[in-house]
Structures are given as C-alpha cells and as structure tokens.
C-alpha cells in the first residue's frame, strides 16, 4: 500500500479507536460530563473525516471557510435558542 493509502488507513484505525473509547466511556458514570465528553469525541471523529477523508486540509483557504462557515450559523442557532429555553422564568415575571 502506498503512502497516501497508508495514511487513510491510519486515520481509519484512529476513528475505530475513538469509537471504542466513546462506547467504553459511556459505561462509566461520569455525571454531567458524559454528554460533553461523548460529543467532543464525536467532534474529533468528524474533524478526522473532514480533514483527511474530505481533504479539507489541502484545499484553498476560501474553500475551507465555505466548508466550515455553516458551523458558525449552527452555533448562533443553538446559542440563541438555548438563551430562551434555559432562561425561561429566570426574571420572576410570569410568561417571560
């Protein structure tokens, strides 16, 4: 197997490793850390797939911006919806 194919395979092993890690950790009582930890591992997997399989690492900067920009909008969506959901009732006025 030549070098590029080897690299793709190492990435695959890393992905499987992260999968094993996340499943193992889910069996450990981690309380409120369980969610963020599992999602962080998922994010790492996603980064590997995007960077090496979708080849974002070697694309021009403009394309990288376009590829990653939606995450910014998702972040805004999440943040402002949570600003409502989490903070309802916190000023002591009914209905706010």
């Amino acid at each position: 197997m030549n070098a590029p194919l080897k690299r793709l395979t190492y990435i695959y092993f890393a992905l499987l490793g992260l999968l094993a890690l996340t499943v193992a950790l889910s069996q450990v009582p981690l309380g409120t850390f369980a969610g963020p930890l599992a999602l962080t591992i998922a994010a790492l997997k996603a980064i590997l797939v995007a960077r090496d399989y979708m080849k974002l690492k070697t694309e021009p900067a403009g394309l990288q911006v376009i590829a990653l920009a939606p995450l910014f909008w998702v972040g805004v969506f999440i943040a402002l919806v949570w600003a409502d959901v989490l903070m309802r009732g916190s000023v002591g006025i009914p209905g706010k």
Partner: protein
Amino acid sequence: MTKSYLTPLWDWKAWLFTTDHKRIGILYALTITLFFIVGAAGAAIIRFALLSSHASLVSAELYNKAFTAHGVVMVWFFLIPSIPATLGNFLLPLMIGADDLSFPRLNLLSWYLFIAGALITLTALFIGGVDTGWTFYTPYSTMFSNSYVELAVTGVIVAGFSSILTGLNFIVTTHMKRAEGMTWMKLPLFVWSLYATSLILVLATPVLAITLFALIIERAFHIGIFDPSLGGDPLLFQHFFWFYSHPAVYIMILPGMGVVSELIAAYARRPVFGYKMIAYSSMAIGILGFFLWGHHMFVAGQSAYASMAFSILSFLIGIPSAIKVFNWVATLYKGEITLDAPMLYALGFVGLFTVGGLTGFFLAALAVDVHLHDTFFVIAHFHFIMVGGMLMAYLGGLHFWWPKITGRLYPKRLARWAAVILFVGFNITFFPQFILGYMGMPRRYAEYPDHLLWLNWISSAGTLLLALGYLLPLVYLVRSLKSGSPATDNPWDARGLEWQTTSPPPKENFLKPPVIPSHPYPYDQKAPS
C-alpha cells in the same frame, strides 16, 4: 447579424427545455407576475373586508383564508424569488462577464421545482384554503385548523428547494465565472447583494423545510413535537420558523438594495459613494440578519434574556442599513440627476425603506413592542419595506434593464407618471395603517372598533391608486414588446458589462470579451465602444 437569445421566440420547447439563464429569468418573471396577481387578489379581499368593521362584507372565515393566501403567495411565490430569480438570473452572468451560470441545468430544475411548489400550494388555496396565517403557528395549525395545511406547506417545502439551488448556483457562479480582471472589488453592487442573498437562501431555507416537514408529521400523527400535552413546545416551532423567516426578509430586500445602488449610480452618473462600505454592509446584513429572529417572539413566552439579546441585535442591523441609505444620498450629491422612472422608483425606495426601517426600531424596543405586536403597525412596517421598498426596486430594475432584456424602449413619460401614481397610492394605502396599529387595531381580526372605520376606508381607497400604479407598467411594458422603439446596446449610457453587449444579448452573452473597467461605476470615463 447574430441572433439574439430570444430566437426562436414561439418555440415552446426552446422555452421549457432551455438552460439559458436569460430565458429562465423570463420564465420566472412571467410566473411570478401571475402569482403576484393571485396574492393581490387576496389583498383585495382583505381591503374590501375591512371596509366593514363587523365582518359584514366578508365572513371571518373567508377573511382568515384571504390574509393567509395573501401572505403565503406574496412571500414565497412572489417576493422571495422576485429580484434574484428574474433580474438576478438574467444579469448575474452578464455583469461578471460570463456566458451563463455555473450550473445551467440546475437553474432550470430550480424553476420547475418552483412551479411544482406553487401548483401544490395554489391547489390548497383554491380547493378550500388555509386559515392559519402565513406563519402556520402551532398548535392551531397542527391541532385545530380544519384547512388544507399539509398541502399548502408541502408546496412551500418544494419551492424551498428551488431557492436553495438558486442560491447555490449564484454563489458558485460568483466565485468561479468572473471574467479575467473582474475582481471582487470591481463587481457591481447588485452582484454583492445577490451573493449575500444567496448565503441566506442556502443556509436558512433548509431550516424552514425541515420545520414545515415536522409540522406535517405533527398534524398527521400527533407526535408531540410542538404539542405541550405530549411534551412538546409550541415556541420551538416559532424559533425554527423565524430562524428562516427573519433572514427571509433580507432575501427579499437585499437584492432590491443592490438594484437601487445600480439605479442611483446610473441616474446620477456617479460611482456609488462608499462602494466598499455598501459591499460590506450587504454581507453584514446577510450575516447579522440571522441573529434577530426572536424579535418576532417578544410576547410569545420567550425568556426575558433572549428577548433582550434579540432586541439589541435588532437595533444593530440598522447600522449597515443606514450606511447604505447615507451612501446612496451621498451619491446623489453633485450628480447629474435625471428623474426618469427608474430613478423615481429608486428615490421612492430610499424614502419608503427608511420609514419602514425606522419603524422597525419601534418594534425592536421591547416595551413598545408589547403594545404594537400583532397590530397594523407591524403590517405597515413590513409593507413599507416590502412594497414601498422591494417592489419599487423591482419595478425600477425592470424598467432600467427592460431595453437590455427585450430590445425595446418603454414610454418614458407614462412610466414617470406610473411611478408617481404608485408612490402616492402606496402612501395612502399604508400610512394610515401605522396610525391604526398605534391606535390598537389588531392584525388578522375581521372586526375592529367603529372609530377606526375612516382610517380603514382611506387605506382601502388607496389600493385603487396602488393597483393603477401596477397596472400601468404591466400594460405599457407588454405593449412596448410590439410597438416600443428598438433599443441600442446602451440607451442610458450606463456602465456595467451588460451594457457592452447587444440589446437583447446573443445567447452566449458576449460576442467579444467585455472590457473590464479599472474601477466599478466608471462614469468618469467614456463607455467602451
């Protein structure tokens, strides 16, 4: 003599199977004109109904269906596609010196999806209608309305895919098909506005699609996603709906602003003042517009903290908007101004958009919104921007580029009169609605207190003049196709690459490569021959 893109003219296959962006622009123009008439019929019912303060002319049920139909058709089947799919499709490749969009077949698919969606929704409206309002709020839409909600909403979802594909096409085209030497900072401001609009089309529309899909599932299976008794949250529907629908209003206005920049430059014969700031402000509006949606939910039960955040952000968007208005006015200073119809429309836009935009601040203020929410003040606010702004920009652009698109000139004097009639009719129709809202008249109510009768009569009377203002261009523009004087390549001595080709252009747009100027809006130089 090279054939224009309009040859062959009467071959239906050459229209329905075309991939030429210019023909697709015309297909869109014809269809949205039809849908505008449908939406206007809804408006006619509304204004007729409101001549009575007791729903004695039109039943409350029909009234509900009329304002829903008016909103649904005007928003999704007229305003959202209007300038981007007509003028945008036609002009974007020409303005950047390209021969077509990046994906011509996808462009045709966009139109077919649009037609399919429109047919589905119009069917729903004609076989019985929908009474939820164009916003389809839950739980009424999911649990209590006996109208054709699923069908209407399905059409909107399908049309949404049309929007996404158009936005995708515009973005890739702007990146990839600019002629050699046409750098980003030389692009016409209309192109910048289309790019910002396309960002919204691509990123916001999917959220609408999935939200409306969830609405259909909820209505069909009562899954509980928006039903409190089943664990759901009706406010979540509003968050998701407005995450699209607020940026959607920027889809509607940004292209109009782009057109106004072109018109003011051409009819003041000056480069647009502060070109870079206008370009950046278009992008700023496109991006910032995504952060404001909760201002539609101030009294819906949203948390006070979220409301405060949305309120401040809503004020902030005034900054890039105001930058544009100031720069347009500055462009006029010491210009050689010609008050032809397109300029009248552009100036009308600047005035009416400013009023509409300023009244947005009233609504962005939390304490004031408590009193103005769901009143006619809101209706006046957005009609000033959509009709006073966007629609006038569309008409202005249509007139300005009419010779380029059709190869014919329109009657100038009549066009000026039509623009003035439209402006006057518009103000008579919509200004009283600010007062009505301030005096507490709710929207979407078939009945209202008797002392508001005379203001409603004035508003309804204004629609007759407004209708004349729309009818006149429809008549004389269509007539000009047959009897208008043939146009030269550049009848207005304007700048912009589209004026360097014939009127109308050949299918490939340019017979020889256009000359890229050293800076945008080179009104200080002679037009390249």
